[in-house]
């Protein structure tokens, strides 16, 4: 069964939203999605929800969240897979509709990273093996620093090259009212910003945000503006971080596999030409370079040149993250779903000041866990 996205809602993501409770934050995104989809709460047959419990310290967070999702009396299924939570929600909603189990499913992701008072890294450390990995790991920052170290060693990439990614991201974020960080930065700002975990500096890394996102998937869109799911794929990875790069000798193996599968499902032979815009889950600048290559946007070691050429800009020939991406906005449980929502808005032509001209096909990615990846390709036609 073909599946379309007909409504997207997201909060204006900020560093802290002390004015609302978690259910109230969720409700903001849900109301916007319902209104965008032009349906009432009764039009939703099932809800998939997700966030990461240790970031807010709330076990079974789906159960309190019903006050915001509107899940009382409905089927509500919680999917929580770390950084991929949002993209996993989109995929779960897709399969629940594609199966014919439900006609219309709403995916709702949220995170209030300010609830752990800036100590998101503490929660992320606990994602890894309690005996072998937690003593050394410094959350996503150091995990990605290991990737950056390998990438830098392989291609002799300079910090200035990686910095271009966030410089462009901030330019785009300034056009996006939902974005968290919108202040322009320069290459000099980035390379002079405080060192977090070498070679990653403060401005190389995504922020921690409070925010929620809701997306409505249906098999029966009627005359609504729709973005159709054309390629849905996910590839997982090993238990221990020390095994992740084994064999493939890099950290982008699962993204390559997931993208190849999504391209195959979407019937694409030349994704670089056939995809009009990419919403990539880039938690840090270095990862964006590595993963643009995994997606086939350029050859190995060519990503810095791709950014420097302007090709990834809003008016370039392969725009990456017109929304500003994860580097500007990161409410973790929502982040992957925001990628899907932004890609859908591009296809539906309603992305406002960040709209890319003439989008027929958009790709959203999700990253999480032990370097696993998810991809969803959306098109204007089924």
């Amino acid at each position, binding site marked *: 069964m073909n599946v379309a996205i007909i409504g997207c809602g997201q909060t204006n993501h900020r560093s802290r939203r002390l004015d609302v409770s978690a259910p109230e934050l969720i409700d903001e995104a849900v109301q916007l999605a319902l209104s965008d989809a032009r349906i009432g709460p009764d039009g939703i047959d099932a809800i998939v929800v997700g966030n990461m419990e240790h970031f807010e310290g709330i076990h079974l967070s789906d159960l309190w969240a019903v006050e915001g999702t509107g899940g009382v009396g409905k089927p509500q299924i919680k999917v929580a897979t770390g950084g991929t939570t949002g993209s996993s929600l989109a995929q779960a909603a897709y399969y629940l509709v594609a199966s014919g189990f439900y006609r219309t499913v709403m995916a709702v992701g949220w995170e209030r990273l300010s609830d752990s008072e800036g100590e998101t890294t*503490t929660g992320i*450390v606990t994602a890894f093996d309690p005996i072998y990995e*937690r003593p050394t790991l410094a959350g996503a920052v150091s995990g990605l*620093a*290991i990737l950056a170290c*390998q990438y830098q060693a392989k291609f002799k990439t300079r910090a200035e090259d990686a910095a271009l990614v966030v410089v462009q991201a901030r330019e785009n974020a300034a056009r996006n009212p939902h974005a968290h960080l919108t202040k322009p930065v320069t290459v000099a700002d980035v390379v002079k910003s405080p060192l977090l975990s070498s070679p990653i500096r403060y401005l190389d890394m995504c922020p921690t945000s409070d925010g929620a996102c809701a997306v409505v998937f249906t098999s029966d869109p009627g005359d609504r503006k729709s973005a159709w799911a054309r390629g849905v794929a996910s590839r997982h990875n*090993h238990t221990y971080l020390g095994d992740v790069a*084994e064999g493939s000798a890099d950290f982008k193996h699962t993204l390559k596999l997931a993208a190849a599968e999504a391209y195959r499902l979407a019937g694409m032979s030349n994704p670089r030409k056939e995809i009009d815009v990419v919403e990539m889950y880039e938690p840090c600048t270095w990862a964006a370079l590595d993963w643009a290559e995994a997606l086939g946007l350029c050859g190995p070691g060519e990503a810095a040149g791709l950014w420097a050429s302007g090709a990834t800009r809003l008016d370039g020939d392969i725009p990456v993250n017109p929304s500003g991406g994860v580097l500007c906005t990161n409410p973790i449980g929502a982040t992957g779903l925001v990628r899907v929502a932004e890609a859908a808005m591009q296809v539906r032509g309603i992305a406002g000041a960040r709209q890319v001209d003439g989008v027929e096909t958009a790709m959203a990615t999700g990253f999480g866990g032990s370097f696993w990846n998810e991809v969803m390709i959306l098109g204007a036609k089924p």
Partner: protein
Amino acid sequence: MSEPIAVRATPELHFRYAAGRYGSLFLRGLGEGRILASRCARCPRTLVPPRVACTHCFGKMEEIVEVPPRGTLLAFTLVAFPFLDPFTGVQRPIPYCYGMVQFEGTDNTFQYFLSEKDPSKLRVGQRVEAVFNEVRKGELGDLLHFRALE
């Protein structure tokens, strides 16, 4: 009212993480100053720490072997930012370096501390060796760090 009402708490949850049989063997090995790996003869794969499931065929790793306490540094980082350690609830001492080390004769990498604190003195491909504590208790901390051999 100056700031919206919020409820604060610092819950502390205690766990007894089972090391499992393979992990228990590894920790006991560290106590004896030895690095133990599991081996799948079919694939073949030799992996540290030892574990029940092979990363290639996902079948049972039948064999436990000792590997030399030396290897190659394949990636590293200097952690320089402050954060709360979930184990202690207080800030983890920084800065520190850790890296991914491929032990000789193994197919994967093992993540652990490096003695070097200056990342400019480290390079990918460098030879390193494991340094053990003199007093050992059969726990991960028996392994002090890796130090550069060159």
